[in-house]
C-alpha cells in the first residue's frame, strides 16, 4: 500500500517539476533572484550526486589512488571535456574502472 503511494507520488513530483514552466507558468513572472538561483540547480544537484559516487564508493571517504572509481571518474571527466558525445566518456569511465579493477586483482 505504502509502495503505491510512493510510486504514484513520485510520478506526480517528477511530472509537476517538468511541466512547471512548459505547461503552467511563465518564468518571466518570477522574481529575478529565483531565476538566478534556478541557474545553479543543475551544477549543484549533479555534483551532489556525482562526487560521493566517486569519492566514497564503499560509503567511506577514499581519496587515494587505490580508489578505482575516483581515477575512472577523472578519466571520464577529461574525455567529457574533450568530446561532446556522452558515449565516449561513459565508455572511457567503464573501461578505466574495469582495467583498474583487473590490475588490483
Amino acid at each position: 500500500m505504502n509502495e503505491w503511494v510512493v510510486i504514484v507520488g513520485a510520478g506526480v513530483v517528477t511530472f509537476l517539476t517538468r511541466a512547471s514552466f512548459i505547461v503552467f507558468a511563465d518564468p518571466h513572472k518570477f522574481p529575478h533572484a529565483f531565476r538566478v538561483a534556478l541557474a545553479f540547480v543543475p551544477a549543484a544537484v549533479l555534483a551532489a550526486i556525482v562526487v560521493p559516487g566517486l569519492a566514497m564508493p564503499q560509503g567511506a571517504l577514499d581519496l587515494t589512488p587505490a580508489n578505482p572509481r575516483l581515477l575512472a571518474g577523472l578519466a571520464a571527466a577529461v574525455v567529457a571535456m574533450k568530446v561532446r558525445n556522452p558515449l565516449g566518456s561513459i565508455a572511457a569511465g567503464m573501461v578505466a574502472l574495469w582495467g583498474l579493477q583487473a590490475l588490483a586483482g
Partner: protein
Amino acid sequence: MLPNARSEFLAGCRDITPVLVGTVPFGFVAGVAAVGAGMTPLEAIALSLFAFSGIAQLVVAQLVAAQSPALLTLAAALVVSLRFLMYSAALSPHLAHLPRRWRIALAYLMTDQGFAMGTHHYSQPGDRRLRHWHLLGVGVTLFTVWQASVIAGAVAGAQVPAAWSLDFVVTLTFLTLLVPALRTRADLAAAVVAGAVALAVSGLPYRLSLVVASMAGIGAGVLAERAHRR
C-alpha cells in the same frame, strides 16, 4: 530541403542514439535496484512509467529499502527533480506556441539527455517551427529504450555479477551532464560546495545529504555570482 515533421522526428530518434549506451545499463540498474529494495517487478515497472527518471527511481528504491516514511521519500524525489524546473524554464519559450497536449507530452518525456539535445537543436540556425517533432523523436526513443531496460532489470533481479560494477554507469551518466554544466566560475563554486557538503554530511539519514548539499551549492553559486558582479 525544407524540414518537415517526419524528418525532424526521425532526426531526433537518430541524434539521441549515442546516448543510449548509457541509458541501457542505467535503466537495467534502476530495475534491479527497485526489485532489490523489496518491490515486486510490477511495482518497479509502474514506478518507472510514472516517474520516468533514473535518479528519482534510484532514490525512491533506496528509501523504500530503508523503510523511510512516504513523505520523506517524496521530498527526496522532489529535490533530485529540482533540476527539471530549470530545464522547464529554459525550454518553455520554444514550446509556448504549442497546444496544451503537446506541452504536457513533451514535459512528461523531458530528461537530462533530452534537454541537452533539445537546447542544442533549438540553438541551430534555420526554421524552428517544427523542432518540437525533433524533441518528440528524442523523447519517444529514450522512453522506449529506458522502459525496456528497466523491465529487463526488474525481471532479471540480482543475477548480474557485482564485479561488472554496472552501477558506476549511473555516476558516469551524471558526470557527463555535470561537465558541460560548468561554464562559469559561479557554476564551479556551486558544484564544488555541493560536492564537498555532500561528502561532509553523508552520514545523515534518508539521503538528506543530497538535499542539504544541493541547497548549499545553489547558495554558493548565487553568492559567487554576486561577488563577481561587484
